[in-house]
């Protein structure tokens, strides 16, 4: 089997891996490197559970080939905390009860990070568009939307609405 070298930056650190040509990004992250926050849900690009940021933009890691990430920056949930300090989005997800089973949470967080990095003051519609490719079967989305708005400092209906959702 021919292995292909791939060099990239993962959560701020330079990385180099050898992978079989045609390996998907999620397979490299999970099976070669041990980065398990991106989840394998549909493996069709439909559920968003595998969303990571490639050069700051969200992509589904299940349909992205590792070789196409040569020289690029990849961000996952593992890179969100600074030391023992959670990212504002992670805190907001906890405070707003935005995770139930948690399977979609990694993808939601990365989609939300891509939004807030570009648009620190999003409207509710901006948030809905940002996560429209991420499926959640537990929460009904409202607590997630509220959490992202809370992280941005734009408190929407807030915690009481989340609890009653």
């Amino acid at each position, binding site marked *: 089997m021919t292995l292909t070298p791939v060099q990239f930056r993962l959560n701020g650190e330079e990385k180099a891996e050898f992978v079989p040509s045609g390996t998907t990004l999620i397979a490299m992250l999970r099976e070669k490197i041990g980065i398990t926050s991106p989840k394998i849900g549909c493996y069709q*690009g439909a559920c968003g559970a595998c969303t990571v940021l490639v050069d700051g933009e969200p*992509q589904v890691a299940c*349909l*992205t*080939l590792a070789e196409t990430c040569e020289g690029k920056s990849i961000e996952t949930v593992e890179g969100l905390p600074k030391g023992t300090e959670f990212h504002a989005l992670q805190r907001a997800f906890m405070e707003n009860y935005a995770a139930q089973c948690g399977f979609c949470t990694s993808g939601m967080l990365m*989609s939300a990070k891509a939004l807030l990095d570009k648009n620190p003051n999003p409207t509710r519609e901006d948030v809905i568009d940002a996560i429209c490719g*991420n499926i959640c079967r537990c929460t009904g989305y409202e607590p997630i939307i509220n959490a992202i708005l809370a992280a941005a400092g734009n408190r929407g209906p807030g915690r009481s609405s989340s609890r009653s959702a």
Partner: protein
Amino acid sequence: MPVALKTYDRLRDAVAALGSETGSRYLGGGTLLVRNLIEGSVQASSMIRSTERSMTEIRPAGGRITVGAGVTMAQIAAHPDLKFLAPVARTIGGPAIRNMATVGGNLFAPYPYGDFAVAMLALEATVSVQSGYSPRDTALDEFLLSADRGNRAVVAAITFRRPESDRAFRYVKMSRTHPKGASVVSIAAHLPASGGRLSSPRVAYGAMAPTAIRAKAVEAALNGKTLDEAGIAQALAVATEGCHPQTDPFASDWYRREVLPVYLKRLLLS
């Protein structure tokens, strides 16, 4: 075992490799081919792609705009010269898919997908197809029905008309999941007017036939008419002419025929 990826700097070298390697497939953004390979609906001996710069360029030139086949939906949505197409691009997948899905790939999207092609049909698009060592141009409506979609040719770029005004171009998509679900029906229209009357309008549908199609009966019925209830009455009467919608998990063929005139009316009178 993954299917190997081969990358070529020049598109013509990629096309040559595609022609010489039995079972190879061209890779655009990966949202169709990689997905199909994973689910097993497509077999391939290798994936071939090109990183030629022109494939990712957007080149406005007077009344026509050329977009490389590798331009993504996110790039279309963000480009200042393509504001009229942003509403189309934003209905194609969520942000992660829009960052990957390409203009060229959308021409190959299976029913009921392929909404960008609908907009392109309304804007008199031509497709630049690289086959062998020289590109050739084909009208999009011919390309969608031609054998080129299934053979060794690769789309290099698509060129389309800049609408007379942003308001002259209109687009609507009905889907079960907003804003990015598969189409129940999508409609795009370019409605140039002269003296308050439509002049050579173009109307196209998605999900009303195996590929995106032009609504030629509607175009003929609208030509020279005004955009009001009386002016569009005949167009609505012939709205489903030439349509062969399918039944799928999103809608029945009957429902698509019923709902099409409703959305066409809204689009024309909006």
